[in-house]
Structure formats: C-alpha cells, structure tokens
C-alpha cells in the first residue's frame, strides 16, 4: 500500500504556540514550535515531563479544550490524500473531525484506559472505518479482523469478540495501533506508546510500528522520554525544554554530538549497564515554572556551562549550528571546543 511519490512534507508545523488560561493570565506552555515530517520518516519528540511535547501533539490534533481556556496560534499543514494541504488549526470542527482518525491518527501512552471497557475489541477497531469509510458493521468488522492480524495478534477472529479486560497490556496497545491504522493515515502521532509496557513488549511494539511504517509509508511522530527508544526508531530528533525546541537534527548527529547542554545531560543520564560502579547521573534542578520563566535561556539555571552574560541576558535563538542541526544555545561552539580539548563526551546509547 505505497503512497504516491512524496511532494514535500506530509505534516508541516509552523510557529505553534499554546497558552493555557489561568484566571485572567495566559500561561505559555509551548513557544513557536516548528517541524516538518516527510512521508515514511520518524521524528522523535524528546523531553522531560512538562516540556510541552504532548501539548504540541494534542494542539495539532485539536484535542485541547476550546478557545477561552487555551490559546493556540500557528499552523499545522497536513498534506491529505487528495493532494490538498490543509491547516489543521484553521479547519472548522466538522472538517477536523473528518480528518481525525482518517488522515492523521494518534495513540496514547496508556493502553489500559484508552479502550472502552464495555465494547468488544472488534467494534472499537471498526468504529473509525464506519465513521470515515461509511462501512456497515459487518464489513467494518471484516476489515478489523484483517487489521488485528496485521498488528500481530494471533487468533484474530476470536479476539474480535473479546473485551479489553481479556487482553494484556501489549495486546491492548496493538489494538490501539490497529484502531489508529484502520484508515491508513498519512501521519501517526504516538504519544509514549511503549512507556506503560514491559521492556520485552516495548521492543515488540517498536518493531511493529517500524514494520507498519515501512509498509504504509506513513510519517511517524514519536513522543518519548526514553532515549534508547529514540536511537532505535527515529530518523530525526527534536528535543524540547520548557515549551521550546532546544535542539533538532538527525538522530546520529544529535545522539553522538549533542550540542545543547540539556541534550547532553539527557544522554548522560541514561543508566548504563556496561559501565560498572558510579552513581546515576542526573540533571540538577527542575523544569522552570512557566508562570515565572527565567529571564534568559530557560535551561541556564540548571546548566553547568551557563555564564551570566550571554545566558541570562536573553532567550537564545534557534541557530543552525551545522547543516540540518539546530541548537538553542549561546555557547554551543565554546562547549564543543571544550570537548575538543579533552572534556568527556557522553557516548551514544543504542
């Protein structure tokens, strides 16, 4: 089921900012985030809790509470099957509903709660096909059976009639994937789809997603805070901190030569089994309160390389340090030069 030859990105997010109303004030949660995603490409969105990665994806799906409570600006251009490019953030509600689950789909972290306990698996998978393809229940169920097989659930005909509580967590996440892929979307947003699963099951789900992506050529936005997963699945990485992109580039340059101190800290804090002894490395401090952001770089208070003059003066811009590798740091070149003089560089984790 190959798609027509790509002509530009399938998803192009530009200048996306999200603010939440808190009383009369608006608390900014995401600032000016932009990225593009080509067909068949996997973009990993990395950052700790509260960095804005989930809000970014929910905003693109238009699943945040409506206008008075949130303010979303920017655009999210989706190239649809008919070749038209539509701005998800500007579409009327009804048109957005037609795209959701059809051209762009999403899966959540928690497969335990994302399935409705009172409906059979088959009916839940068939739902999207009935909404978007106008199929009758029986035809939709037949397609659902095929989908269940495709996501690697054995004994599909029987599983079709099972209730969610009869399946394990990994099986349920497979069901969620089958639901999301029912209408063959151009873009799949996976919000920490493996976080709630066993490590062995995680690997299976990642393999499944990679395999399905090869088959369908869909673009995959993979939200995670697990850098091991990033190395495994991503083509490109976007690191977010305090609602801003702090580093973006190909997976190899970002993982082997991280330029932003935050990314370096993240990579250094991955527990290593091959290095004996030693404490676990962590980044000191916590994410800044979005109501009272630091004056300059948001990461400066936690950064071991921060200097009062450039770092606290103003928010650094997102510079293209190397071709296709963007970093939001005033001192990246000085830090990289320090590395060259012999400071330890964290190794890649794969």
């Amino acid at each position, binding site marked *: 089921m190959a798609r027509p030859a790509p002509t530009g990105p399938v998803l192009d997010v530009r200048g996306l900012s999200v603010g939440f109303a808190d009383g009369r004030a608006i608390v900014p949660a995401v600032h000016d985030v932009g990225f593009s995603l080509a067909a068949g490409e996997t973009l990993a969105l990395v950052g700790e809790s509260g960095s804005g990665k989930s809000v970014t994806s929910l905003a693109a*799906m238009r*699943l945040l509470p409506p206008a008075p409570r949130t303010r979303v600006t920017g655009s999210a251009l989706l190239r649809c099957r008919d070749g038209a490019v539509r701005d998800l953030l500007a579409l009327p509600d009804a048109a957005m*509903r*037609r*795209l*959701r*689950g*059809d051209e762009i*789909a*999403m899966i*959540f972290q*928690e497969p*335990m*709660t*994302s*399935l*409705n*306990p*009172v*409906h059979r698996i088959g009916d839940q998978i068939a*739902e*999207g096909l009935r*909404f*978007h393809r106008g199929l009758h229940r029986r035809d939709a169920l037949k397609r659902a059976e095929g989908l269940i097989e495709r996501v690697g659930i054995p004994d599909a*005909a*029987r599983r079709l*009639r*099972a*209730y*969610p*509580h*009869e399946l394990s967590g990994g099986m349920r996440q497979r069901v*969620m994937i089958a*639901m999301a892929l*029912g209408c063959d979307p151009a873009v799949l947003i996976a919000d920490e789809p493996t976080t709630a699963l066993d490590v062995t099951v995680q690997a299976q789900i990642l393999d499944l997603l990679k395999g399905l992506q090869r088959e369908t050529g869909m673009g995959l936005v993979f939200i995670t805070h697990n850098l091991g997963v990033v190395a495994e699945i991503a083509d490109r990485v976007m690191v977010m901190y305090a609602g801003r992109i702090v580093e973006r580039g190909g997976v190899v340059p970002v993982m082997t030569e991280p330029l932003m101190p935050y990314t370096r800290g993240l990579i250094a804090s991955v527990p290593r089994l091959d290095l004996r002894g030693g404490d676990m490395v962590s980044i000191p401090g916590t994410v800044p309160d979005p109501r009272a952001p630091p004056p300059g770089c948001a990461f400066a208070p936690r950064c071991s390389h921060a200097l009062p003059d450039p770092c606290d003066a103003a928010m650094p811009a997102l510079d293209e340090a190397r071709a296709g590798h963007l970093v939001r740091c005033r001192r990246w070149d000085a830090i990289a030069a320090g590395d060259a003089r012999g400071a330890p560089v964290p190794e890649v984790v794969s």
Partner: protein
Amino acid sequence: MTDTPLAPARRFAAFLPGPRRAAMRRPRSRAVSRFLRHRLAVAGFAVILLMVLACALGPLLIPYDQLHIDLRARFAGPFAGPHVFGTDQLGRDLLVRLLMAGRISLTIGFAAMALSTLAGTTVGLVAGYRGGIVGAALMRLVDAVLCFPSVFLLLALAAFISPNVVTITLIIAATGWMEVARVVEGQIRALKTRDFALAAELMGASARYVMVNELLRNAVGPIIVAATLTVARAILAEAYVSFLGYGIQAPVASWGNMLNNAQQYLGSAPWLAIFPGLMITLAVGGFNFVGDGLRDALDARVEL
C-alpha cells in the same frame, strides 16, 4: 452459546481461586452471579415476577368482575367461601380488585419509571458532557425542582389535572426524574475524562456518538439501579395520591383508593385494609430489594 470461543480460558478459570475465577468470566455473567448471591434481591425479584404474572393473568381466571356488585355477599370474610380474599362493602370480590388495581399500579410504576429515566438520563447526559454554563444551568434546574417537596407538588399538580392513568403517570414522572439526572450527570462527568472518550474523539467520533456510545454505555449500571428504585417510588406515589383522593377515581380500583375506602371499615372488615397494604408493601419492598441487589451486582468496582 455465543462465548464458545473462550471456552478453553473459562475451563482454565475453573482452577483458579475465587476472585481470579470471577475476573476471567464475562462481565455479564459476573453481574448475574453477584445478583444471585443477594438473597433478598432474588426474593424481591420473585415477588415482583409473581405479582406481574398474577395481575396480568389472574383476573382472567377469577369468575368475578372487579365492578360486579353483589349486595348479598357484602363483607364476606377472607379464606371462606367463593371469595378467596373476601368482599368489600358492596360485595365486590377483593382479590380481583387487588389484581386489577395491581395492573394500574404496576403500569403507572413502569411507565413513570420509563419517562423519568428517559428525561433524567437526557438532562444528566447533556449536563455532564457539556459541563460549563449549560451543565451548571441544567443541574441548578434539577436542584430547584428537587427543592419542592414532591408530595405537595404531586398533590398541587393533581388538583389541577383531571386524574387518569396517563396524567397520574406524567405527574409522577415529572417529580421523579431528578435523581436519575444527578446519577447520570455524576457518572458522565467522571467518564468523559477517561482516555477512551478522547480516543474515540481521536478516531473522528462526533460529540453525540461519544455521549451515547462511549459514555452512556458505561453508565448503564447505575441508571438501571436508579430506574428500579424509581419504580418503587412511583408505585408509592400513586398509592399516596389515590389514597388522598386525587389519583385513580372509584369505582376503578387502585391500591391507594382501596386503602382509602377501607378506612371506614377498619374495625369491622380489617382485611379490606390489610390486603392492599400488603400488596403495596410487597411491590415497593420487592423493587427496593431488587434495586439494592442490582447496585451490588452492577456497581461493583472490581472490574478493571
């Protein structure tokens, strides 16, 4: 059987200790087994079933009409002679009148339950799902209606409307939908924050689809419980209104107006009061016990 595909799993489940075994069975059969463990509820269900059957078929088998007057057989005592439960001051057979009255009372009970459940569910669903100003306005309306003492509201309405089965049903339903609305609103408000509601929206489901198919389906248990208790309340309300003379009018029998009529003969013919009173007690008690049993069976927080 529809669930034969799971047969191996269920056979395996037979070897697990109790709770695990229960957890592997289908939710429906688990609910049934929990209900059956509730003895009073089963007894209540049996009483109601018996009463419905008796009221439906009994009058066809008894050779008297509820309005047939036989002055020679006035105040015949119960369990002696051809009139099993005796006769009243006009010599009308008490048993057939009780059963005919039961038809009316049960009909009003079920019909009022259906109407108030429908109205309450609709209001609660919209209020719970929409929330915000719409939800607040609807729920404050519920509070306002709930503030009226329902007995006086019932009597005030009944005084203005010519009483018959349909109007009495409507009046009782009008004073009984708020409980259901509150139950449903609370359920929906809790359910709509669950991931599966968002997941359905993500699949492109419309608001109405999410409300009815995703949320309401999960609230069916509490709604059934509330509806069962509403039947008991409606039967009691009908008896109350008829007893006070605003409900079903003589000569048509209802449990309430039979009790009213029996007052004058309480000393000389106590069975005229005892039997209708017993019927009301059995019916109301039966529905309340069934409601309790259903609450335990359907509301149990054991399933995932």
